[in-house]
């Protein structure tokens, strides 16, 4: 065991934890003022719900002894056998418990990302039940496949910090949500304008800050690869912000603050699977691509007419997919080699993992949404939607007149 590595992973766990309230502000600023608290709650309460579920059963399903490449066994149910030394953990240099809590923070933020798709119309009870089922039946298997010695890892798919596990999975669930829930009342005829963009920009700043823990921490050691991931993460976010505002300038004439914040997040999403496998110059290209492609993805939404309220698919789906493919193109360090460095087979592996992730997560999420819809109900009534979700779901309001 290594004290420096342990200290680093604990600090990174705290950084990743901070991303969830950051996401709450990022999303909260983009909705109308009558829905600000309900939207914030759909991120914040997952720190409660998912953390407990993770300790009870989520962790063992993801990281227990592999069963057929698809799921972890029940070895670590209730965290039995997850101790203060490295025994049973995936790495020798840090306590098993440190790895568990680092992974817990990833599990918390992933379903929170989905909430952007159904913002402003989802009932709180249905949201909680869906999130609980999703963590155990979609997220835990995905984490197992990629990081828990499951079949995607065996196939050789590269996903440094969660392009598939976190971003594509949440975007596929977001797509399922738009299919099952339908559009918000008045979508297309009324103006759905963000009510507090300064809040959104603050949230984006917190996300950018926390992402250093997310990506550099995924090295699971305070070493050179962590430094590389830290720098590639920062540069990709920077290039993503520039890419997005450039597209805005070309498309609608003016760069916007919301665009800069969205572009930074798009760059961060895109670099997530690649952070530990690419060098800095490719990272800038990946981030720039994230900003450009995600902007186009968001524009496409209005053309296709589905109501993904806060663009989970446009940002996390497009960015995560681009990042996974880009990893197959640009990987060159940390025992990984991509197409541009003479290994075309890596690109095919990445494409296969992209297709499998979208197919599994979309189908499973669609079934879960239908199930919850048929039992406790998903969609708020038209009257509840008019009054706002803050009042109708929580009996409170974000702002006093």
């Amino acid at each position, binding site marked *: 065991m290594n004290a420096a590595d342990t200290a680093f992973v604990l600090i990174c766990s705290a950084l990743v934890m901070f991303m969830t309230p950051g996401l709450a502000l990022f999303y909260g600023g983009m909705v109308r003022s009558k829905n600000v608290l309900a939207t914030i709650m759909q991120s914040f309460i997952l720190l409660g719900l998912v953390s407990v579920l993770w300790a009870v059963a989520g962790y063992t399903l993801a990281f227990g002894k592999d069963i057929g490449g698809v799921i972890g066994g029940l070895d670590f149910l209730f965290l039995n056998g997850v101790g203060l030394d490295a025994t049973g953990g995936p790495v020798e240099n840090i306590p098993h418990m440190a790895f568990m809590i680092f992974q817990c923070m990833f599990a918390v933020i992933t379903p929170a990302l989905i909430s952007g798709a159904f913002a402003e119309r989802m009932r709180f009870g249905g949201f909680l039940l869906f999130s609980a089922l999703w963590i155990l039946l979609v997220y835990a298997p995905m984490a197992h496949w990629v990081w828990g010695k499951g079949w995607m890892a065996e196939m050789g798919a590269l996903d440094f910090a969660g392009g598939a596990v976190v971003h594509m999975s949440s975007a596929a669930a977001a797509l399922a949500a738009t299919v099952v829930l339908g559009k918000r009342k008045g979508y297309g005829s009324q103006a759905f*304008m*963000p009510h507090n963009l300064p809040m959104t920009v603050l949230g984006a700043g917190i996300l950018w800050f926390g992402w250093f823990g997310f990506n550099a921490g995924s090295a699971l050691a305070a070493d050179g690869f962590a430094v590389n991931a830290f720098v590639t993460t920062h540069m990709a976010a920077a290039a993503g912000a520039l890419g997005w505002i450039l597209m*805005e300038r070309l*498309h609608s004439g003016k760069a916007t603050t*919301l665009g800069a914040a969205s572009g930074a997040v798009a760059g961060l999403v895109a670099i997530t699977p690649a952070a530990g496998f690419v060098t800095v110059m490719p990272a800038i290209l990946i981030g720039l691509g994230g900003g450009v492609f995600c*902007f186009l993805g*968001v524009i496409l939404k209005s053309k296709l007419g589905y109501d993904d309220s806060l*663009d989970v698919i446009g940002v996390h789906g497009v960015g995560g997919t681009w990042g996974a493919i880009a990893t197959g193109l640009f990987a060159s360090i940390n025992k990984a080699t991509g197409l541009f460095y003479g290994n075309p087979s890596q690109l095919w592996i990445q494409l296969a993992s992209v297709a499998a992730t979208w197919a599994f997560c979309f189908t499973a999420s669609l079934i879960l949404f239908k199930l919850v819809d048929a039992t406790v109900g998903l969609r708020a009534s038209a009257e509840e939607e008019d009054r706002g979700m803050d009042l109708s779901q929580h009996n409170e309001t974000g702002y006093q007149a």
Partner: protein
Amino acid sequence: MKKVEIITRTFKLDDIKAALSEIGIKGMTVSEVKGFGRQGGHKEVYRGAEYQVDFVVKVKIEVVVEDSRVADVVAAATKAARTGQVGDGKIFVIPVEEVVRIRTGETGDAAV
């Protein structure tokens, strides 16, 4: 007594207040209002989606004065608020039936 109601550009508020103070007006009520006239609305763009915002934010200043001072107040406010562009706003003069100063119970011109 008349109420002079001035609806105009928000950034002109300080100029109007100064101009009215200069001619001895000692009180006013100010509110932020929305509406539209010939100026129409404006366009806002969020993540590439364009929205037409029809209601423009304006400031409404209400002043109640004796009949003899109405012309001075209107002239001062007009001079201070005018830019010459569409969207300068309007001034309404409305008769006031009665005024009561709550503290003393005074009424009429004495209460203005």
